[in-house]
Each structure stands twice: as C-alpha cells, then as structure tokens.
C-alpha cells in the first residue's frame, strides 16, 4: 500500500525506481541516498529561506540555490518537490518575489511530506525486506 501510494501519488518518479534497481547488493543504498538528500536539501532550503527574508531579493542567488536543489531532487526522483523547484525558478527569472515565496512554501511542504513518506517506506522495507520496491510497476 505504502509503496503504491508513494509512487502513484507522484511523490517519487521513475528516477527513484532506477535508484532502487541500482541497489542490488547494497540494501541500504537507497536509504543512504535519501538521507544524504535530506541533509543536503534541508541546508539549501534554509539558505533559501534566509535569502527570501532579505530585501530586496537577490534573485540570482536564489536561482543559484534553487538550481542546486533541483539537481538533487531530480537525482533522487522527488518529482513533486522538483516541480515546485521549477516553478520557483520561473518566478525567480520573472523577478516575481511573491510568486517565489508562495512557491517556496509549497516546496517546503512537499519536501517534508516526502520525507515522512520515505521514512515510513524505509522502515517498512526494513521490516519486510526488499520485497517490492516502491514504484515498481505491478
């Protein structure tokens, strides 16, 4: 259930599947990646948050941060988060500070939602063993 849920709802995409496929001999690989991702992305998110509090907004810096964030979100397959990143970038390029802030809130939400889901997923995976991967098509 959880597995299907996590993928069907679009929280994670194809890329995540790839990662799972990669971890043949290393069962913790995906979890390690996810941990790394969260550590790094949380840092970036707080940087962005700080930058968003400044006035006037430094769009190029924001864009820079967002670019970094996008890189890792796409690598891990966090689709929804990535979509927010893209949206944020668009607002950034347009110089739309309000749009950026709004999107950023969304982004944070998606980010933490995913985190919970992944944590649950890994926990489950640990319990039942790597029987099924999250998004493998049934």
């Amino acid at each position, binding site marked *: 259930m959880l597995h299907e849920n996590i993928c069907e709802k679009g929280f994670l995409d194809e*890329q995540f599947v*790839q*990662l799972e496929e*990669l*971890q*043949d001999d*290393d069962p913790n*690989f995906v979890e*390690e*990646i996810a941990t*790394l*991702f969260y550590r*790094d*992305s949380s840092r970036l998110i707080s940087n962005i948050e700080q930058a968003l509090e400044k006035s006037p907004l430094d769009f190029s810096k924001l864009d*820079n941060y967002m*670019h*970094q964030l*996008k*890189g*890792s979100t*796409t*690598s*891990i*397959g966090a689709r929804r988060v990535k979509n927010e990143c893209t949206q944020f970038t668009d607002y950034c390029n347009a110089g739309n500070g309000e749009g950026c802030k709004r999107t950023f809130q969304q982004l944070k939400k998606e980010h933490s939602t995913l985190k919970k889901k992944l944590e649950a997923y890994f926990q489950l995976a640990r319990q039942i063993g790597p029987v099924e991967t999250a998004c493998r098509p049934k």
Partner: protein
Amino acid sequence: MAAGDVSDLFPVGLRVLVVDDDPTCLMILEKMLQNCNYEVTKCNRAETALLKLRGNKNGFDIVLSDVHMPDMDGFKLLEHVGLEMDLPVIMMSADDGKDVVMKGVTHGACDYLIKPVRIEALRNIWQHVVRKRKHEWKDIEQSGSIEDDERQQKQLEDADFSSSGNEGNWRSSKRRKDEEDQAEDRDDTSSLKKPRVVWSVELHQQFVAAVNQLGIDKAVPKKILELMNVPGLTRENVASHLQKYRLYLRRLSGASQHQSGLNNSFMGPSDPTFGSMSSLNGLDLQALAATGQLPAQSLAMLQAASLGRSPNKSGISMPFMDQRNLFSFENPKIRSREGQQPQMGNNNNSKQVNLLHGIPTNMNMQPNPHGSQSSSLMNMQMSQPQSRPPIFNDTNANHLSRLPSPIAQPNLSNGMPSGLVLARDGNNSVSQAPTMVDFSVHPNTDFQGNSFPLATNNSRVSVVTTKGLLQEDGINSDMKGPRGFAPSYDIFSDLPQHKMQDWELENVGLTFDASSHSKIQGSLNVPPSVLVHQGFSSSQNNVQNQNTSVGKVMFSVGEQSGHSNTQNMGQQLDTHIDGNSLRVKAENNPEASSQNTLFHGQFSQEDLMSALFKQQEGFGSASNEFVFDGYPLGNLPV
C-alpha cells in the same frame, strides 16, 4: 593492466573521474558507474579533480563533471582538462537550456547529460574514450609517422583501446618516444608520432613561434604547419592544437595579466652574446639561466607541472629526475600542462629542473651571477631568488625530456615563478652553456659553470616554462598542486652537466625555437612549442611570487627575481594581455645584478622573444610583442 586482458573486457574498468558538488548526485553517479563496472573516483570539487588528474596522468580515461560548481565553473574545468590532459569530458546538469548545452559544445565537451542521469546514459560513455583515441591515432597515422608511430599504433590497436591497456601501451610508447625524441632532439619533431600527437615542449614551442611569427590572427594551420616544418605533423594536428591554444589564450586574456610571455619568451637574451650559449635551443636558456631564474627551477617546475606533480616546493628542487620524468613521458599531457610548471622561481635547487627537455640544463646563465636571475627565459620566470645555481639539477639536465607541463611551481623561492619552460629540445646540448637558462634566480651565481655565453649580461631570462608556470590559468591562482612544485628549474645551472638534455619540454612554453637555437648558442633548445602556452598558468605562480603576475607566462621572465640578490629578473612579466596580443612585459626588477649576464639587467621578455625570434628569423625581428592571444608576456626588458 595488460592490454590483453583488459581489452577483452573493455569497457570494464574504464577509469572515470566524476566531479559534482552535490553529494546526493555524486553518490548516485558513483553507484551507477560502479554498476557499469567502471572504476570510479569521485570529487566534490573541481580543484580536487584537477589535482587528481594532474597527479596521475594517464590515470583516468574520462571525466564527468557537473556544470554548476561553487569553486570553479564546470566549463573551466573542461577547458583545463582538454588542454592539459586531453581527456574526454562529459558535462552534466539539471539545466537543459540550449545555451548551456551549446556552451558545453564550444568548450569542447564530448557530451552533455541532463540530470537526472540515467544509468543507460552512463553505460555508453566509453564510446567517447574510444572515439578520441581513434582520432588521435588517425592523426598520427596521417602524419606519416615514423615507425614509432606505427609501432604505437599497432600497440594501440592490439590493445583494442582498452583503457588501461592502451594507457600502458601508450605510455610506454610515449616513453620510448620521448627517449627517442630526446635523442633526436630538436631537429624535428619526428617524435610526433605518437598516438595522440603529443605536443611536446619543443613542438609546442615551434608552434607558438610559428603562430607568433604569423600573428595570432593570421595564424592559419597551413601556414603554421609550413613554418614549423615538422615532419609527420599534419595540418589537422596543427588545427586542433591551434584551436585549443586559442581557447587557452582567450582564457588567459581573461585572467590577469600574467606574464605570459610564454610564447615568446624564449627569446634568448637579447644579448647577442648568447651566441655563446649556443646550445640553448633557441632559447637562450643560458641567458635565462643567467638570470638565475629559471632554469632549473622552472624546468623543474615545468616538469613537475606536467607531471602533475607538485614539485617540491622547496623551490623547485625537484630533483631533476623527477622532472625528467615529468617530461619525459608525459607527452601528451604535458602539453598543456600549464599548471605544471614548476615554478621555478624558487630556489633553484640546484637541481632542479631539468625540466626542459632538451634544454641544456646547463643553463646556467652563466656569467651572470644571476643576481637576478631573472632569466627571463621566457617562460621561466625564474626569478629565483635563490641564488641557487640554477637549475637544472644537473642530473636531469638531460632529461628534461620534456618539460612537463608547466610546473606550477609557484614559488620559486626566489620568487621566481619561473615557469621555466625551457623546452629544450634535447638537442641542445647545453653543453655549453650550461648556463642556459639559469633561471635560478639566485643571485649570482649559479650560473656558473655554464658557460652561458648568454649570460653576459644579466639578462635574466626567465624562461618560463609555460607549462609549469602556467598553470592553468584558472588554476593559477590556485596553483594548487603544482604549486609546490617548485622544481627549481635549475636546469640551467647545471647545464654543463646536463647538456644535452633533450628536453622536450613539452609543455614548456618555451618557445624556444629549436632551430634557432643554433643561433643562440647554448640557447636552450627549447622547442618553441614548449613555450607557449601551455601552461602559462603555472607561471602564474611563479610569477605571482614575483609579483608579476605572469599569467601564463611562458616564461616568466625575470620573475621578479626573487633573487634576493639581485637580479631580479626583473622581468616581471606583466602579462598584459592586450587585447589579444601577448605582450611580454617583463618588468625587470632592478637589475640588480649584473649578472645575469644573459640578459642584461632587465630581461625583457620582449627581448627574449626577440632574441628568440631573431634566431628564428635571423635576428630580424625583435618585436616584442608577440601577439599572443591573451598571453601578455610582459615586457621583458633586457
């Protein structure tokens, strides 16, 4: 690995270096590459990656790099790798905008992957390795390479391009070639025949000299080829090298002014007395040596640089042996090694440097007590304050088989950035003039021995081997690795001993015109190819020490001669990149010493260049300005 077993399994074991500042991506990529059975090394910083690459030439087959990185732009890394190591580079980014992808293309990336990168995309990256090798071979073949080439080729084919196998083959072939080259010495570039056209120091010097002669704007491959007159070299080889060179110059022009005098720097000391040096290849290394600066150190640096090693910082004391190694084999890599120039400036540890292959290590610029060693041997910025007898550590003197990449030695203790690039072509037996470029900046001194005829005046010739000195411009400032390399190019110092080192300074930016060296006696036969450019960046270090920011000076002439004593080889090459012209401005520091007889007092790069050119042209042109794109050589007042 033996070619045999590896080739069968190719691309298994392909050695990939992946660079990305994002730890998540890096880890994922590593895993994916491992799943493809590649041998993966990961870095999260571009500088680290370059260090690894330089430190282990031939240690990798391909590089994967992210575009956006905090410490260095991915494209810059790409350029460096292309010039110095000539490895295929694949760029990656989450950004798929057309202009970014185009940038990748123009900078020479062989592919561009959009993130998220899929493992299927990574499985095929080996094709770029094969393709590149094939092309290189083809070039070589076309050039009518001599047996060596064929030999190598055969090896290559046998090895089926397996990376390790090939590497081994190539490497050994190259080495062999280097040796042969040394023997042949300058006369020609027959050594060209290497699987990839290895732009040895000599060759590069010739190239640079030819380009300078024609004028960077007018330099077309056909004419350059004609001027260089190197058997076995094809127009295609020249064209591709020219392209890289141009990129390099462009890059340099952005970089500060470092004295890039590289290219021309080899101008032998303008002092006609160079004649005595005669052995120098075109480059009056002696003169340079006189200046104390360079030589050994620069050479060392260069070598070190090329070898990717950081020379002992001690002032280049690179044991010449090392340097030798550097040069000797690294052919291809040396070429653009800019970074590697051992900054010779430092003390010339007496031994150092023999970086310049072929550059007679005797470059001691003799008479000049080098007080100021600013041997501006053009690239050598050897302003080694040390009075060390330059350079060349005798031992290597002969070996300088190539000045390997610019030794980025940043600090010549003397401050001589000497990137001495003395690319000697080996032929020069520096026998005489051991003083060849005594780049060692040591004030006074050391040049001895060498009869550096050139050194009559203090010209400091800082021959900066570009390679060493120039450490990639980007990296110049960092000069990280090589920096330490201060192989003192004391090449010159020990010139007499070394004599004949065939230095193939490959990357030595010394544009010592091999041919011209006859003119300059004792001049270092630093093949012009050496000079230039390659590595101007390394000179930076040297130069920087000196104050001169010689950007890529090939020779940092006179890097501020650290010599504490005197001579400063004043030449600080100010690399003023004038637009595109390389102006070698070597500001000579007070010529403190007379010694450097080679170059009198201030050795201006221009003088060097002109001397060099003169040699080439029969002393016709002493124009100092060599239009080197972006390589400001600074004026080396001689």
